[in-house]
């Protein structure tokens, strides 16, 4: 049974059609990497899944919740799926702990002591239990991104969308974030990640989706996709031509 169902989704920015009919299913517990050149539409697809971009055509559903315009429907869908961004987007006026507590308290009306307990557990899970009272600008990029992961996890989503979450990090900080993601994957979290970390995609993902010019160009298990790319575009992308 699939968790995320994307059916013939089209998205235009003005005259420019960025997604030209995408169909994709992501199963529960599956880890999917979306790869492709910049401008191929991979980030846009991710942002469409949780309604940050409005689709022009097609349908998206997450665990039975349809993506519909309107705040109530979006809220239901976003409760089921979290998102991590390239630029972390922590709330700078709140400590790491408060960042993780905020939406539990505001959206789920969780009482403060319970929200704090959850926040401490989640920060511990990403290896930052001692940073509860640190403000975002006192943390390194890698630490900020791990707080962002804890913040998304605290809402207990069924899946996470990861939009190039290591692209803004210094090279030596990439591995600490990927280690957290790898652990999540091992625990059975559904993950859809747009990534440039090919080695990570090969090691951790169940399936690789190659996007090219707004279409899903090739899909398959990483062993197959990376070893025997079927199209010249993927070969070129992987640097094999």
């Amino acid at each position, binding site marked *: 049974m699939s968790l995320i169902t994307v059916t013939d989704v089209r998205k235009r920015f003005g005259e420019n059609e960025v997604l030209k009919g995408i169909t994709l299913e992501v199963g529960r517990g599956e880890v999917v990497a979306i790869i492709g050149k910049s401008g191929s539409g991979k980030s846009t697809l991710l942002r469409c899944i*949780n*309604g*940050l971009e409005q689709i022009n055509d097609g349908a998206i559903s997450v665990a039975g919740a349809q993506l519909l315009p309107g*705040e109530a429907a*979006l*809220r239901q869908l*976003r*409760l089921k799926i*979290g*998102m991590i*961004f390239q*630029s972390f*987007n*922590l*709330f*700078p*006026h709140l400590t790491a702990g408060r960042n993780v507590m*905020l*939406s539990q308290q*505001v*959206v789920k009306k969780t009482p403060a002591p319970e929200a704090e307990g959850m926040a401490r557990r989640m920060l511990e899970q990403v290896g930052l239990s001692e940073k509860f009272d640190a*403000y975002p*600008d006192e943390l390194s990029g890698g630490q900020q991104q791990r707080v*962002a992961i804890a*913040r*998304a996890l605290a*809402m207990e989503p069924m899946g996470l969308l990861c939009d190039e979450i290591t692209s803004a990090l210094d090279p030596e900080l990439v591995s600490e974030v990927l280690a957290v993601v790898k652990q999540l994957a091992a625990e059975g979290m559904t993950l859809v990640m747009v990534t440039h970390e090919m080695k990570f995609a090969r090691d951790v993902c169940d399936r690789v989706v190659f996007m090219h010019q707004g279409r899903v160009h090739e899909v398959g298990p990483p062993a197959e996709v990376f070893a025997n790319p079927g199209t010249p575009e993927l070969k070129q992308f992987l640097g094999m031509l």
Partner: protein
Amino acid sequence: MIEFTYWDIIRNLLLATRWTILLSLVSFIGGGLVGLIVMSMRISKNRIVSAIARGYIELFQGTPLLMQLFLAFFGMALLGFTVPAWLAAGTALILWTAAFLSEIWRGCVQAIAKGQWEASASLAMSRFEQMRYVILPQAIRIAIPPTVGFSVQVVKGTALTSIIGFIELTRAGTTLTNATFQPFLVYGLVALIYFALCWPLSKSSQILERRLNVSHNRH
């Protein structure tokens, strides 16, 4: 004929200053509340709501405050409502202040990075919750210096209400001039009192701006 000593002049001016201060406070606080509503409407995704707010702002920013005071005072009288000067003055100044504050604050809200909206949206917050817990707390910090700076304009704006007969500092100055025939002395004192009210505001705006800049990312 009554002789006015310097002390008489100063005492009468200071008594009238109370009304200038009161009117400034009412305009600023009332204008702030209305301004918050207009600002929320202005950044609404609903085009009609946003257009109404934009129309309001352009109308009040694009006409002289004096005309607004005349319309509030004489216009209402024409429609059959007798409006006392203090009510017309207060209403016009509140609406005028709201138009400017809402635009100042809109700039501050829009200065907050788009990623803050996206992150809070992805955590399932409603637009109101995003504003209340994520955007406004950050926007307020950058809004304080320009807001305090604008309060100087409000204080000076109250001088115009003398024309519709509200007795505040400027009006008291005119009355005293007529009684003493010493316009330079009286208006000089009036100007000094305005300066004494406004200068601390401008200065604190500058200090706040410097302090908030230095600690741009401090807490």
